[in-house]
């Protein structure tokens, strides 16, 4: 401008000079720039675990779905580890296979709270996503089961029991998890999943121990393994069927 001072301080506060300078950058997309700035101001940082999961799974959406699994939050994992830790101590004291009996139960509860309409308030919306609910199911259940399996193994080794019992809870864990998941998905309630899963396990323990009064029978008899796996497969099948989209969603009412 004609009579304006030339220094920086002036431009910084003179609307006229600023208007003139604004004309010099008409091909700069300020809206796009603002989108980038606002994103920085408003977004939350992505955790390392999520980033790694995104790379491994090849899908940032799937990674975020995994990281937000209710039964994979740190507090949940610590609680499970605590319960198993107590189980280890009790097992060593009493020589009863508490760890082997607890592990499937804990897994059943964790699986009930891993996935599905009972657990996800935005369930209906989730069913319209490109990252399908089947993918999310697979990844979450795999992760939760895997984690519970590792916890169980560590606890089992700590309990130092016979090999048969140290690993004997794996097939039962599969069964209890599958039943819990099927129940939770079908009834659209995580609590129903927990109830059915635990009830199923209790029945299995009592039924296999009856007559011998052996609490460890449920986890130490190899003959039972195919039975467990059969039930597990049935549970998986029921889960997939109830997810298949031939049923109404969101309750009984339809419009």
């Amino acid at each position, binding site marked *: 401008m004609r009579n304006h001072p030339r220094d920086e301080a002036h431009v910084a506060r003179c609307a006229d000079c600023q208007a003139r300078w604004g004309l010099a950058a008409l091909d*700069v*997309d300020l809206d796009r720039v603002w989108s980038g*700035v606002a994103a920085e101001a408003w977004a939350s940082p992505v955790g390392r675990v999520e980033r790694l999961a995104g790379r491994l799974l090849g899908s940032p959406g799937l990674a975020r779905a995994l990281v937000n699994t209710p039964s994979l939050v740190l507090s949940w994992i610590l609680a499970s580890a605590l319960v198993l830790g107590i189980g280890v101590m009790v097992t060593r004291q009493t020589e009863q296979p508490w760890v082997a009996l607890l592990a499937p139960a804990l897994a059943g509860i964790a699986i009930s709270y891993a996935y599905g309409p009972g657990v996800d308030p935005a369930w209906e919306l989730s069913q319209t996503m490109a990252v399908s609910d089947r993918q999310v199911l697979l990844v979450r259940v795999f992760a939760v089961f895997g984690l519970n399996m590792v916890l169980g193994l560590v606890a089992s080794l700590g309990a130092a029991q016979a090999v048969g019992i140290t690993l004997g809870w794996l097939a039962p864990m599969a069964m209890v998890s599958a039943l819990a998941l099927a129940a939770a998905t079908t009834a659209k309630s995580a609590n129903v999943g927990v109830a059915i899963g635990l009830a199923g396990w209790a029945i299995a323990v009592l039924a296999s121990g009856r007559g011998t009064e052996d609490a460890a029978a449920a986890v130490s008899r190899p003959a039972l393994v195919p039975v467990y796996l059969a039930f597990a497969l049935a549970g998986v099948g029921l889960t997939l069927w109830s997810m298949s989209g031939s049923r109404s969603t969101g309750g009984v009412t339809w419009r």
Partner: protein
Amino acid sequence: MRDDELIAEVAAGDSSALRALFDRHSPWVAGRLRRAMPAEGVEDVLQETFIAVWRGARGHRGEGEVGAWIWGIARRQAAVRARKAGRVDLTPGPVSEQSSEDIAPGAVRRADLHKAFASLGPDGHEQRELARLVFEEDRTVAEVAQRLGIPEGTVKSRVFKVRQRLQAVLRQGGY
């Protein structure tokens, strides 16, 4: 709101204050940067600059003009960018090194600009008149306000809108 009030709000985490600062200062910072780099580079530097403003608002501490502070950040960001590309830093220094004739559009030729003005409306149409007064006749905001019989604040916001329209037209024309 005044700049120093806005900066204090940004420091307190208010992103709408950041938006206000952005709307006020990004056009002229962009203009000065445009003298030394292409539009895409300006966009990158601007984005980094205002992200730095968001993160470092507390560091301002009321020391001097906010506009000058922002320009300082922009210069530094531009220098970083130039160094990364192995180029010599060509960003304009203090304004005193520039004559007013230098304040001409970077990549936009005068002829194209005239065409863009024409698109604002027929001769005498308010937006075109405003653009002519501010950008061609070199009038101050006060003079334009008096001439058109509107408050100064209105002049400033209309200049902003005219600028956006000119930009859209120029982009459409592939300039």
